[in-house]
């Protein structure tokens, strides 16, 4: 418990110190404070991981009662178990590396201290998300990482594109959070509690399995509805189709942020959430089918767009979208351990790739277009080698990290009988190998295409190169260490008890099938790399140009990201703004309601205006009126 609390306190204290005194007093020493903070968390995470793995430690404790809503009591509580301890390792490792890297990368920026303050906020929020022992804590972390993401994407707020991107990210996430909120309300309705221990209780779930719930007159299975709501949150946070459009735009933020938040940690929160709620998702068959669909669709969507992009960070961003699709798909088929395993390995190599791209940007004067790069391998050896390692890892070549986790996901999908998803996912693996090596060849191999930029290119300082090397080593090792032998590695022993094996495990494959699948995925990866080599080294630039010409409409469609942004603008943004502006405000508020109100005001005024003519102030008129009145009354009296 003490270590768990310390994990949270580290970044919190760093945030407070930097936030309150950073601008005036600390200034350039801000990184020291922030690194000390995250360092404390890192050490505590290691200790916790050690205790959990060797002594089977679990902590499920309450710090204080946070919210009382009628009979419902929500604690501010902490849970340390294998799942949260492995997430702690991921978060604190990447966070620490990004902190160190940023010392070099952000050096000289006007908002140096501000950047590190935001990083501390992010780390804190992510740790709250991971360490909470109830849905409320999860939601709090969930929203706060959204806030930190907003702040960091909009770090260079004076750029309109950055300001747009951070708002878009927040709003897209909020759309998912709406679903999440409804999911929470249904959890409360069902279990009268938000604690994991009450909600993931097998007996309680058994009781509500067949229960239905009526929403707007339609009847749904309660557990499906609940999990679907929760999953909407995951679609927002983990950038799943159709809420994926914010993630590529989020690349407007500084590159270390892209590595930390938009590749390694925050965007995987959705995967973590689904894995955490595996007891519920495993019983929700409708939702699970949808999860598989969303995951597969996202994996394909991201990879297909990734094929055509020219902006290095966008390529990586769409690759992240695609890989997140893999993880979500894995949770859908019930391979929760593999999903978390892929989350773990992906954090290492995608974090690495992003940091490499930052190093390239640094050398290329913030230029990101791969068409002006080329031949950087001699100028930037460390970046080149580490980037190459990242590419091999993500492509799924053994024995690097990506192979182990990706192969497991494919195998479980196949074994679960989801053949279409498996087919698409396997194709995506080939596409991934292709576009990752496309970027590698265009950036590092071949001849320099812009000599001016090339001449000024240089290797990055050690504060930046160090983390690259560290993450590259991890990208090589973590797969083997945790994943060998396939489908039965240490990770399964470690996470198995919390991530109850679901249906996929029931129908086990034969050894031969497993091996065939493994060989197939290696072959596909190699094929992808070979094609990339032919396109971008051997026959460059003839072959790519010719292909683009042949498949012009397809290329344009992919280059424009399937026109999702345009579609959403047309379907939602414009109509809602029009409705609000023209109908609700100008028509109803101003012309209907205010017309009536003003009429109420006008009637007495008009009446007063008429009466005014009678009040002339001349005695003669008054006397005349009086005489006429008296005569009229007398006449009236006598005639009746």
């Amino acid at each position, binding site marked *: 418990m003490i270590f768990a609390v310390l994990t949270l306190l580290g970044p919190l204290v760093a945030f407070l110190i930097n936030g309150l005194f950073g*601008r005036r007093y600390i200034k350039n020493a801000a990184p020291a404070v922030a690194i000390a903070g995250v360092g404390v968390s890192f050490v505590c995470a290691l200790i916790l991981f050690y205790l959990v793995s060797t002594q089977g430690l679990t902590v499920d404790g309450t710090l*204080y*009662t*946070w*919210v*009382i*809503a*009628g*009979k*419902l009591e929500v604690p501010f509580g902490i849970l340390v178990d294998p799942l949260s301890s492995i997430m702690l390792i991921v978060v604190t490792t990447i966070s620490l590396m990004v902190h160190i890297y940023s010392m070099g990368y952000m050096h000289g920026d006007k908002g140096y201290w501000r950047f590190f303050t935001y990083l501390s906020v992010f780390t804190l929020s992510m740790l709250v998300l991971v360490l909470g022992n109830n849905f409320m804590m999860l*939601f*709090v972390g969930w*929203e*706060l990482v959204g*806030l930190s993401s*907003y702040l960091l994407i*909009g770090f260079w*707020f*004076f*750029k*309109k594109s*950055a*300001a*747009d991107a*951070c*708002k878009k990210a*927040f*709003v897209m996430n*909020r*759309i998912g*959070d*709406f679903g999440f*909120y*409804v999911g929470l*309300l249904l959890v*409360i*309705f069902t279990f009268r509690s938000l604690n994991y221990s009450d909600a993931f209780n097998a007996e309680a779930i058994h009781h509500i399995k067949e229960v239905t719930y009526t*929403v*707007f007159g339609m009847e749904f299975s309660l557990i499906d509805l609940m999990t679907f709501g929760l999953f909407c949150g995951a679609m927002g946070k983990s950038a799943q189709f159709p809420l994926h459009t914010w993630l590529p735009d989020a690349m407007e933020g500084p590159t270390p942020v892209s590595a930390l938040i938009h590749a390694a940690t925050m965007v995987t929160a959705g995967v973590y959430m689904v894995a955490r709620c595996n007891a519920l998702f495993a019983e929700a068959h409708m939702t699970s089918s949808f999860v598989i669909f969303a995951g597969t669709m996202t994996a394909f969507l991201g990879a297909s767009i990734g094929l055509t992009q020219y902006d290095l960070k966008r390529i990586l961003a769409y690759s992240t979208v695609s890989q997140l699709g893999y993880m979500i798909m894995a949770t859908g088929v019930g391979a929760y351990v593999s999903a978390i395993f892929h989350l773990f390995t992906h954090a290492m190599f995608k974090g690495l790739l992003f940091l490499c791209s930052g190093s390239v940007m640094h050398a290329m004067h913030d230029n990101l277009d791969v068409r002006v790069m080329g031949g950087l391998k001699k100028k930037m050896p460390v970046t080149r080698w580490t980037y190459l390692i990242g590419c091999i890892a993500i492509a799924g070549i053994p024995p690097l990290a990506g192979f182990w986790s990706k192969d497991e996901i494919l195998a479980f999908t196949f074994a679960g009988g989801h053949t279409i998803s498996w087919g698409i996912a396997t194709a995506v693996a080939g596409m991934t190998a292709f576009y990752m090596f496309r970027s590698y060849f265009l950036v590092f191999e071949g001849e320099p295409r812009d000599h001016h930029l090339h001449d000024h290119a240089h290797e990055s300082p050690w504060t930046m190169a160090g983390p690259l090397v560290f993450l590259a080593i991890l990208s090589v090792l973590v797969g083997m260490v945790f994943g060998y032998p396939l489908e039965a590695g240490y990770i399964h022993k470690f996470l198995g008890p919390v991530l109850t094996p679901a249906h996929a495990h029931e129908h086990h494959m034969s050894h031969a099938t497993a091996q065939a699948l493994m060989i197939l995925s290696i072959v596909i990866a190699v094929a992808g790399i070979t094609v990339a080599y032919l396109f971008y080294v051997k026959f460059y630039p003839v072959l790519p140009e010719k292909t683009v010409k042949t498949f012009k409409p397809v290329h344009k469609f992919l280059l424009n990201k399937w026109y999702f942004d345009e579609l959403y603008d047309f379907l939602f943004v414009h109509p*809602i*703004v029009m*409705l*609000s*502006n023209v109908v*609700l*405000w100008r028509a*109803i*508020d101003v012309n209907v*309601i*205010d017309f009536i*109100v003003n009429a*109420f*005001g006008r009637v007495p005024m008009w009446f007063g205006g008429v009466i005014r003519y009678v009040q002339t102030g001349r005695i003669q008129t008054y006397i005349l009126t009086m005489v006429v009145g008296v005569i009229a009354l007398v006449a009236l009296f006598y005639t009746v």
Partner: protein
Amino acid sequence: MQHILSLLIFFPLAAALFILIFFRKGKSSMWAAFIASVIEFIISIPLMANFDKNEAGMQFVEKAWWIKSIGVQYFLGVDGISILMIFLTTLLTMIAILGSFTYIQKRQKEFYIAMLVLETGMIGTFLALDFFLFYIFWEAMLIPMYLIIGVWGGKRRVYAAVKFFIYTLAGSVLMMLAIIALYYTHGQITGNYTFDILKITEQYGMYGKGFQMIVFAVFFLGFAIKVPMFPVHTWLPDAHVEAPTAGSVILAGVLLKMGTYGMLRFCLPMTPYAAIKLMPAVAVLSVIAIIYGALVAMVQKDIKKLVAYSSVSHMGFVTLGIYALNQAGIEGGILQMFNHGIITGALFLLIGLIYERTHTREIADYGGIAASVPVYATIFLIFTMASIGLPSMGAFIGEFLVLVGAFEAFSDWAILAAIGVIFSAVYMLWMFQRVLYQSLNKRWENLADMNLREVIYIFPLLIIVFWVGMYPETFQSYMHASVAKLVEHMNTVAVAMQ
């Protein structure tokens, strides 16, 4: 302690009279008013400290005959429903006065006198337990507010003030009709003609169903204007835009709560049959307010108008919670009344202080000022996020309680209300982006950041926002007992109805 409520009510009035007679200069009366409001705030602290949280009924009661022949008493008391409002009123008045030091340049003495008289009216309204007394305070409060908008307001101040007056007068007249009806009916049934609110509430069982429906409808409409609920909300944007900063703060922070306070004190306990019958209808109106307010806020071009429409949306959550008629919903409603007062009050102060420097409230005139006023930008961001309902800050807890309560009572409407969390992010962040982010408008390159006075008056609000967010029990503990009593009252009636 015995007469602390009377002291709370009449101290500002006495201070106002003192200033009227003994002060001549604007500056000195400004300081005198500020000191008076600080003392008033300090008086409210022992009230909070000595409040018995386990007692559901009225505390610190003061009772004396006033006009015995028609049954009018001088009757005051405070319970878990009103105590937070008292605290909110004394706090916000103090802050609003401090926030007016440089804003108000003409007729300073009169302005501060109006503020203090207004405070007496507000506190009196929350404490009065006699209908006659309540009505007097209610009306007394309108006059200084009318003057604050009409004299110290912006260009269209007269239109706004008259509109405000027409609307609220309509509300007052309706309320008076309901009061007279209750007075006579209660008198006829019991033979005891009294304006005693508690006694009239006790006899709720004797009122016929039709009578309850009519009284409820009339009361409800009167209070709905004050809240304001759709479609009687259009006075609010005009009043806010034209009012000076202090006026907007008090208007949003305290005056709007009079409506929901009235519902809690009268509509629910006195006419419970009607309240239970009509709660789905009110839920629909609340959801309309939440979504409608948010959508209209989104397309506003004036920052103050945007925040004003957002109030319609946020107050929709309050009414939704109250009419859920359960512990979580009503507590959420009250907590949200408090939060909205703090957060929207802070937003109006922030808009006001930048207006003093730029003399514009058009969103399009701004842009990128985060670069020139970093402290301001940070604080503005915090309150923007608080208003959006980000966890760890107050409004999140309030909304959560409301939604939990509402989901239990009418789940479909609660789900629709939750859409509000999307739109609140849209309109607030869009405004924030266009005002503080993007490229810096050259006009504001040398804009001065917040000064010490401005930081001082925002600071308490900042603390409270996080306090409510992290440990809401401090504030909820005051209401548990009283709300439980109200809920039990409603449940008894609901059971009897079946």
